[in-house]
């Protein structure tokens, strides 16, 4: 990743060096964010994202981040070159913080663009939406656990007419959310044969209506990769990272399928998504027999209403900011989600054994209600109440309890 960033940074500095800041066309803009521009040929924007949370739980959950927690500190640069190349570099501002997006995108024609570097794989409506633009403090558990998120790769994408968009790419691994936790165990005379490369594709249609982002959108997506032998399945984590469905041994194809929908009529916003992941478990049983697939499944529906009347599509922008003859924008939102894991086989008793054919299932259902206040275009205050209910009371943040309440207050500043 560091090599990729170094190459990217050197190229960027070389291009910037071609333009003297003393050039007559060069200028610095400050609205809406610090931006260096050279005519229409180069634009460099400085980006900054900060999120701070205050959390409370009932019953108490044994996590480290109770109270105030600086959730995100990200800085980055994004820009455009020759009106055809866009690029982005973003990093978490903490010690050994990971690089986030590091990519360049070339628009050959509207129907064919190429993106290369590290960026989000085209899967998951919520996952591919920045957390600073979400209606809620956190993504759903399904979006966090079952989607791939960022990966190094190359992707072709474009718009086919006014009603169809596509994205398809080849990636080095299966995404940050599916990072291997256990290196493949090799016998002395054995070589690793499986590669974990993945392919991903998404098709989004806007079959109804005219106009921009307020039209209903529906999409389908899939990814396919190969998991090497090991304790490397996806796993179920709660909103505050308690593992309620631990990893099991997998080997073979991991296939994700997703269905997504979004509609933003006026001040209203509706979203929904269904995700299913099947993972083969070839030779993973006792005595090396094949096991039934391990299946993860998640869905959610959400609704939001900007009660001050601003348009929901494209992000809420307050018509009258605080201290500028206004109060900002206020939005209320609610979401219901479910996410769980189970095995394809339900024969015989269920076990938590990671090599069981019938794995003990577990699912979490979460209801979230929230209020968002946008004092101006850069600042947002969010309040969420979250109720989590687990299917198996023995695998919860506090074994024995199955229902948990939590509250989060977030302040967000995005430049």
């Amino acid at each position: 990743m560091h090599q990729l960033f170094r190459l990217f940074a050197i190229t960027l500095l070389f291009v910037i060096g071609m333009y003297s800041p003393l050039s007559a066309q060069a200028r610095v803009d400050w609205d809406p964010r610090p931006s260096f521009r050279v005519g229409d040929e180069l634009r460099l924007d400085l980006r900054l994202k900060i999120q701070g949370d205050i959390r409370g739980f009932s019953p108490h959950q044994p996590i480290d981040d109770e109270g105030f927690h600086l959730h995100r500190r990200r800085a980055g640069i994004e820009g455009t070159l020759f009106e055809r190349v866009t690029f982005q570099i973003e990093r978490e501002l903490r010690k050994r913080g990971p690089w986030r997006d590091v990519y360049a995108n070339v628009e050959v024609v509207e129907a064919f663009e190429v993106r290369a570097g590290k960026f989000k794989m085209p899967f998951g409506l919520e996952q591919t939406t920045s957390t600073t633009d979400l209606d809620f403090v956190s993504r759903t558990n399904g979006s966090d656990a079952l989607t791939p998120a960022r990966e190094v790769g190359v992707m072709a994408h474009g718009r086919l007419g006014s009603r169809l968009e596509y994205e398809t790419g080849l990636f080095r691994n299966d995404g940050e959310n599916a990072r291997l936790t256990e290196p493949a165990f090799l016998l002395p005379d054995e070589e690793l044969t499986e590669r974990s490369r993945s392919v991903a594709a998404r098709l989004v249609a806007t079959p109804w209506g005219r106009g921009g982002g307020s039209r209903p959108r529906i999409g389908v997506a899939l990814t396919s990769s190969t998991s090497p032998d090991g304790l490397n399945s996806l796993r179920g984590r709660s909103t505050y990272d308690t593992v309620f469905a631990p990893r099991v041994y997998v080997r073979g194809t991991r296939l994700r399928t997703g269905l997504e929908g979004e509609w933003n009529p006026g001040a209203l916003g509706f979203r929904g998504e269904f995700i299913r992941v099947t993972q083969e478990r070839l030779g993973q049983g006792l005595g090396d027999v094949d096991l039934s697939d391990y299946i993860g499944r998640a869905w959610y529906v959400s609704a939001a209403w900007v009660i001050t009347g601003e348009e929901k599509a494209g992000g809420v922008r307050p018509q009258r900011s605080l201290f500028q003859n206004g109060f900002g924008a206020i939005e209320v939102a609610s979401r219901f989600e479910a996410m769980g894991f189970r095995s394809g086989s339900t024969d015989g008793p269920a076990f938590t054994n990671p090599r069981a054919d019938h794995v003990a299932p577990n699912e979490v259902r979460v209801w979230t209600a929230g209020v968002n206040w946008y004092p101006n275009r850069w600042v947002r205050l969010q309040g969420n109440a979250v109720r989590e209910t687990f299917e198996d009371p023995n695998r919860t943040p506090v074994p024995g309890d199955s229902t948990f309440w939590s509250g989060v207050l977030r302040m967000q500043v995005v430049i």
Partner: protein
Amino acid sequence: MSIRWCLLLALLAAPSLADAQGFEDLFNTAALQRLDLLVNSRDWEKLKANFQENDYYPADLRWNGQTVRNVGIRSRGLGSRSGTKPGLKVDFNRYATGQTFLGLASIVLDNLTQDPSGLRERVAMRLYERMGLPAPREAHTALYVNNEYAGLYAVVESINKDFLRRVFGGVAGNIENDGHLFEYKWTTEWFFTYPGTNLDAYKPLFDPVTHENASTAALYAPFEAMFRAINESSDASFVEAVSPYLDLPLFMKHLAVQSFLAQWDGILGYAGVNNFYLYRFENSSRVQFIAWDEDNAFRAADYPILEGYERNALMRRAMNVPELRAAYFAGLRSAAASAAEPVGGVSWLEQEIQLQRSIVDAPMQADALKPYTNEQYAAVADALVEFARVRPGIVLSQIP
């Protein structure tokens, strides 16, 4: 509480009759057992490669036509850990809450790598039993992993609440197994000196097997008081100060049996105290020692009966008390008498060794994974027979 309720509670608490019969069959010392483990071959290789780790792997266990599914196995032991012939702990409830087998939550498969004869542990525990001291049941077993012979092992009853229930049973309608049980963890040479007032000093020494989540004070404050009494009480008040924590005559008997067995890696061990469990009874500060891992018993027939006693703070002070000194020697005499009791023309101890040797002889010689030769096995087994013949006389001759 009415008799009816007492009976009902006893029935609920006790293992079923079928389990009890199965338990007796599993630990039937007159026959070689056969245990089969079905594991994923990669897990078995991984367990052997990472034998120093306590990682669990799932398995099915088959014995005598019965299969218990989805048990957890892991490498175990201290000096006996092996990547060639791993010692194993088998947890029946690792992946299925409450699952038991023959009423047991777990068993140990001792790899016998510290005993060329494969007989010491099994025979030693039988003598503890004969002497009325709590000791785990054991039997020899041929272990097969994925249908391949993995060597001769001893199947050992785990020291846990099931064990406590068996050896301590019920007291006034209450099953005595909900006290605090600890496994002593050898980390460095320690001879029961006073670790100090900081309770954290006791944590690495005594690993809780029950009430693992109890507070540090609940777990270790009684130990702090006990070792303070052992080390800092005056000579005149020693018995009175220590007795609330330890049945001293019983402790002397335990040590007497261990000394008779010439165990050089036990409570009076050459490298500090080792190989025992401690059970603190319910609603009490009093503890009892429980024998564990006697692979290093039968060190030598002429092993001194007072070997190591001066290094051990508890034993040194106890031997200064005439009644306790007498109890120790009485225990040695009893052990010698029990071992020498005639059975079928030979002593009980020799008869027991010969019986077990006849059971393990073929599977031991077929065990290609044991870390010693068949000649070494035969030589040590012969030495054990000789030990049985002469040890009682030597011990009696050493008693002043």
